[in-house]
C-alpha cells in the first residue's frame, strides 16, 4: 500500500479526539444510551464511522488491537498504523481492543482477556460493528449508569450473542466492556450492566 492510498484521520486531531472521547465516556457511563457521533472521519471499508472514531481516539503504540478476519486488510492495518501507531495483534488473547462484525460477537467474547482478580482493568475492550440501533427484541438493561431500566436493541444481535454478554456480566468485576459502533452513533455495555432478554 502506498501513502497515496491512505485516507485522512481526524480533521482536527486534538479537538476531534476530545469530543469523540467524551461521547465514548458518556456512552460507557450510561449503558444502552445511543449517542450520536460528534465528528466523523473518513472511513476505509469495511469499517464504519463509529468504529473509526473509537480507534482514532483510543489507540496508540501502547495498545495492541485485533481485527476479525472480515475486517482485516492492508488498508485498515495501514490506516491504524499511520494514524495511531497501534500494533496489529494476530493473537486475540493479547489484544487490548478487538474490532469485529456483530455476527462474530458470541465467538469473539470467549477469547478476549477478562483481566485478573487483582487487576480487572487489564481486560479487553470489544468494539462490535452494528448496522444500527432500531432492531426488534433486544435486551432490558439495568445497573450502574441506568436510572431504572433501559431497552437496547442494536441490529444483528442473536440469542447466542446476548447469552455471551449475559455470561460476561456474571464475571463482574472481571469481564469485557463492549462498545457497539454504528454508522453514525455508538452505545456501550460495560461488564457492570445486567441484561434481561426481551421477546422479539
Amino acid at each position, binding site marked *: 500500500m502506498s501513502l497515496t492510498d491512505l485516507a485522512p484521520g481526524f480533521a*482536527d*486531531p*486534538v*479537538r476531534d*479526539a*476530545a*469530543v469523540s*472521547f*467524551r461521547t*465514548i*465516556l*458518556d456512552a*460507557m*457511563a*450510561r449503558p444502552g444510551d445511543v449517542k450520536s457521533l460528534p465528528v466523523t472521519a473518513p472511513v476505509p471499508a469495511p469499517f464504519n464511522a463509529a468504529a473509526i472514531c473509537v480507534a482514532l*481516539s*483510543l*489507540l*496508540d*503504540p*501502547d*495498545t495492541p488491537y485485533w481485527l476479525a478476519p472480515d475486517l482485516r486488510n492492508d488498508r485498515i492495518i495501514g490506516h491504524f498504523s499511520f494514524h495511531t501507531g497501534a500494533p496489529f495483534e494476530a493473537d486475540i488473547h493479547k489484544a487490548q481492543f478487538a474490532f469485529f462484525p456483530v455476527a462474530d460477537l458470541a465467538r469473539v467474547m470467549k477469547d478476549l482477556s477478562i483481566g485478573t*482478580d*487483582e*487487576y*480487572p*482493568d487489564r*481486560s479487553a*475492550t470489544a468494539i462490535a460493528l452494528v448496522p444500527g440501533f432500531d432492531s426488534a427484541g433486544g435486551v432490558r438493561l439495568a*445497573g*450502574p*449508569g*441506568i*436510572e431504572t431500566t433501559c431497552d437496547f436493541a442494536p441490529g444483528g444481535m442473536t440469542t447466542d450473542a446476548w447469552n455471551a454478554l449475559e455470561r460476561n456480566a456474571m464475571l*463482574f*468485576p472481571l469481564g469485557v*466492556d463492549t462498545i457497539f459502533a454504528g454508522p453514525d452513533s455508538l452505545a456501550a455495555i*460495560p*461488564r*457492570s450492566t445486567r441484561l434481561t432478554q426481551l421477546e422479539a
Partner: protein
Amino acid sequence: MSTETQDDGLEYNFAYLDEQTKRMIRRALLKAVAVPGYQVPFAGREMPMPYGWGTGGIQVTASILEPDDVLKVIDQGADDTTNAVSIRKFFQRVAGVATTEKTEGATLIQTRHRIPEMPLHEGQILVYQVPIPEPLRFLEPRETETRKMHALEEYGLMHVKLYEDIARHGHIATTYAYPVKVNDRYIMDPSPTPKFDNPKMNRCAALQLFGAGREKRIYAVPPYTDVVSLDFEDHPFEIQAWDNPCSLCGETNSFLDEVIMDDQGTRMFVCSDTDHCTTRQQQGYQGPGQEAAE
C-alpha cells in the same frame, strides 16, 4: 488545535497534556467507569504544581475537557480560595475554556473535598482531587495486600476499624473520608469530603471521577450507582448537623464552616458552598448574622 496565550507567547497543546498522555488517561477512565469503585493504576505525569494541589484531578479534567465545556473549580466548597483560583486560571490559559462559579451552569466541576449543595444533573461531570485513594491504606500499608483484599472482597478490617471507633468513643468517630461501598462490590474512599456529602454520591445523576496524582490511581462512580456508607444496624450512618443555620443565608441544610471573628472567641457559621450561599442571599434569604448587622 492549541491555545495561544496572550502574555508570554508560549503555546500549549489544548488542556496542557500531550495527546498520548490523554489517551492513556482516557483508557483508564473507561475501565474505571466499567468497574465502579475499583482503583485503576495510571501513569500519572508531573504537573506544573506540586503533589497535593490536585494534580490527579487536573490530569482527569485535562483529559476529558472539550472546548465547549464550562468549568467550575471549588476548594472546600469555595470558588475563591487559592487552589480553586489557580486551577481555574490554569485551564483558562491552557485550554481557553469558559469558567463559571454557578453550579447549575457548569458542565465540568473539579472539586477538592466538597460536593456542591445543589443536586447535580445528568449533563455534568464531577472530578474529585484525591490525596490517598486506598481506603484500607491506614489499616494495611502494603499495596500488594490491599490489592488482594479488594480482589477477595475481604473488607472485615474496615468494619473492625469502625467498631473500634464505637468501642472507644461510643459512636463512629470518622467524619471525613468515610468509607463507602460502591455497587455492592468495592469499598471506596470518597476522597476527604465530609461524611455530610456521602449521601449526595448515592445514585447521583452526574458522572463522578476521582484522580489521585501522587498515588497514580483513577476511579469512578457512574450515574445512578449505589454508594452506601458503611455502618452497623445498631449504629446507623449519620451525617453532621449544626445547632444554628448559616449566619449569612439562613440555610439549615448545608455544610457549615466555623469562622473565628475576633480574639474574644466570637464565632460565625457560614455555608462552605459559596455559590449556594450567595445564590440564596440574592434570592433574599437572610441569616441571623445579616439581621443583626442591620
